[in-house]
């Protein structure tokens, strides 16, 4: 029986717990081979150890289901917000939408410790496109939605907004509106982990645009020299703001840059959560074992334009056509639609159904619940109190408030 035939057979017995290990292991190994065969852009470029293991084979059904759940929770958080931005003229929130890239955040964060005391969980440094990273790390979507609309009870009290959300309780150090400094700061956290003998890992998410910054080099060079427990997840969605990454990087695969620092650099299919997980798990194990940093380049794509929802329609996934902010360059609609054929939600769902972990009906239930959660989160946010003006003088220092200076 070929591997693909094996998969066909297993599809007939969905949700069948009999395929747990060890037979499950053998089965999933087969699937791993099949997955690699159908993957369009996956390859690995490890400097040593040859290749990534298919670690998703070791995950119990509930963990695999949770990965699908998290992917659709991110997707519906985003879709609900897009619709709100388009249909509610009173809505003040904005977003740099992450939809299309969900598998990267979920694949990476599934390989991390996200619950527990602060000095034991792994830390994630995010970007100006933070929704996916935040939800995957464990941030509460209600509080996030309230923060996106600048409410007093939002995740950060209305001080941060989308580009600055952060939640220490799950190790989400936070979003960052700047391109560059994040990864360097993350290596500082990794340095602290090593200095205090902790097994924690610092993960930085960054886009293809970060390659051009001097900080990219500073982060990887120092992390390599000091063998820091640091992972740079570079989400290559082809565009930094409105410019194609060929404007800022002379290589097709940015992961090739890892060779310069003598660290592993791996290219992974960012639309397939399990391939991302495999790469992240390998990198995390290396980091925890004191073997130093890894650069993971996830090839992915965003379904919306750089900022906000221009070109999007309520109830529809994706944004197409002209973005007035792009001025002289914008993405061809056919490119967007081509990438949407390899949707991370579909790939995850199909794989889990194929593995017998989920039925289609169960997957639909999970997705419906995710949609409901998102709608409720934004409705809850709508009912939250606005900030008090004078609270703007708080949180400048740990203690006290600063003086008002805007009055005579």
């Amino acid at each position: 029986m070929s591997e693909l035939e094996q998969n066909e057979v297993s599809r007939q017995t969905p949700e069948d717990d009999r395929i747990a290990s060890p037979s499950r292991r053998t089965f999933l190994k087969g699937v791993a081979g099949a997955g690699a065969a159908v993957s369009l852009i996956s390859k690995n470029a490890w400097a040593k150890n040859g290749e990534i293991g298919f670690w998703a084979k070791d995950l119990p059904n509930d963990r695999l289901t949770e990965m699908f759940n998290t992917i659709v929770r991110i997707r519906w958080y985003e879709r609900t917000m897009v619709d709100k931005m388009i249909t509610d003229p009173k809505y003040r929130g904005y977003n740099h939408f992450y939809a299309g890239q969900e598998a990267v955040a979920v694949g990476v964060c599934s390989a991390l410790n996200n619950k527990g005391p602060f000095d034991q969980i792994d830390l994630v440094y995010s970007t100006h496109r933070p929704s996916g990273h935040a939800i995957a790390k464990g941030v509460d979507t209600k509080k996030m939605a309230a923060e996106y609309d600048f409410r007093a009870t939002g995740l950060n009290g209305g001080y941060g907004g989308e580009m600055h959300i952060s939640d220490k309780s799950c190790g989400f150090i936070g979003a960052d509106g700047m391109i560059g400094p994040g990864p360097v700061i993350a290596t500082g956290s990794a340095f602290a982990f090593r200095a205090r003998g902790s097994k924690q890992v610092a993960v930085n998410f960054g886009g293809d645009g970060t390659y051009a910054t001097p900080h990219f080099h500073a982060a990887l060079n120092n992390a390599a020299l000091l063998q820091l427990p640091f992972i740079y997840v570079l989400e290559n969605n082809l565009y930094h703001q409105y410019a194609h990454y060929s404007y800022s990087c002379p290589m097709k695969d940015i992961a090739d840059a890892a060779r310069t620092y003598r660290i592993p650099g791996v290219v992974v299919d960012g639309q397939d959560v399990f391939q991302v997980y495999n790469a992240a798990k390998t990198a995390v194990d290396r980091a925890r074992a004191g073997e130093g940093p890894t650069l993971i380049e996830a090839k992915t794509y965003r379904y919306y334009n750089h900022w906000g929802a221009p070109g999007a329609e309520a109830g529809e996934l994706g944004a197409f056509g002209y973005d007035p902010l792009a001025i002289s360059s914008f993405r061809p609609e056919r490119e967007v639609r081509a990438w949407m054929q390899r949707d991370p939600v579909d790939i995850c769902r199909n794989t889990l159904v194929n593995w017998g972990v989920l039925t289609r009906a169960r997957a639909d239930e999970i997705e419906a619940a995710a949609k409901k959660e998102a709608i409720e989160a934004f409705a809850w946010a709508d009912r939250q109190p606005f900030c008090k003006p004078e609270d703007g003088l708080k949180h400048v220092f740990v203690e006290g408030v600063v003086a008002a200076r805007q009055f005579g």
Partner: protein
Amino acid sequence: MARKSWMYAVLEAVQYEMRKDKDMIWIFELTPPVASTPGLPVINLEKEFGRKRVVNTGIDENWMASCVLGAGLAGSKAVTYIPYQGNCMCFQVIQNHAGKLRSMTGGMASMPIVFLLEMTGQTPGFAGQHSDYEIDTYYAHIPGVKTVVPSTPTDAKGMMAAAIRDPNPVVYLYPAGLRELMEDVPNEQYETPLDKAAVRTTGSDITIVGSGGGMPEVLKATEALQKQGMKVETIDLRSLKPMDTETLVKSVQKTKRLLTVDQSYYTLCPGAEVIARVAENVRGARFKRIAFPDAPPPAAPEMMLWMRPNADHIVAAAKKLVG
């Protein structure tokens, strides 16, 4: 003369200089040098001058500023447009290189270059990193670099022409909140001096000094106060370094009351320098400065808009000072 936006007026000045000087370069990231205005041809520097002279780089403001400096040292005129996200990433090279090289080379280094730095400050919602305004203070502190902040399309064009022709490095601040301003701007090239404040209204009761992104509110307040019978002398600084001490002192000698308005943080805001210079030269005057509190701008509009000096604040402060 035709109605033009701030950016159209600026790019018109740049286009003129680039046509005249075939070596002049323009470096940008993310913000294409493109502007249009009804009834006039679209300006697109990248298209007109090609990618050898006009280039869209990666997100690396340090390189952008350094490239322009290097081009200047090699004898070419050069301008870089750095969007507001990165307007301090290039600080070191402007402060420690551009600002000092003329002195360190004993007067040999020539740097006919312009750092066009965008700043927000007017925008609630973006929070902290994308809403700040304090770089006027930072850059104005640097010796060896002229720092200007025009507040009208007409000044924007004239000061860009003057900045490009100036043999010194110029930090040219662009408050992005002024993007929507439209006014009649001459079509021909002209220079607006880089060392002169502009007296916007004359009066004998009080001097109000503002600059850049704060000017629309200052002018609104001026109008309101004039309607109430106050004779207001309103001054737009335009240049933070060199600062036009003479115009400031002359005005306060007459009014004996000085109110400064800044969107920058209170501590060391440009108004603090204005007050210090006037206090050194005018006896018996009364002073007040209003500014953004010494706090990072919060995202929530309720907090941000309450903290940002506006026309109401200015009117109240002026009345207190005069009354």
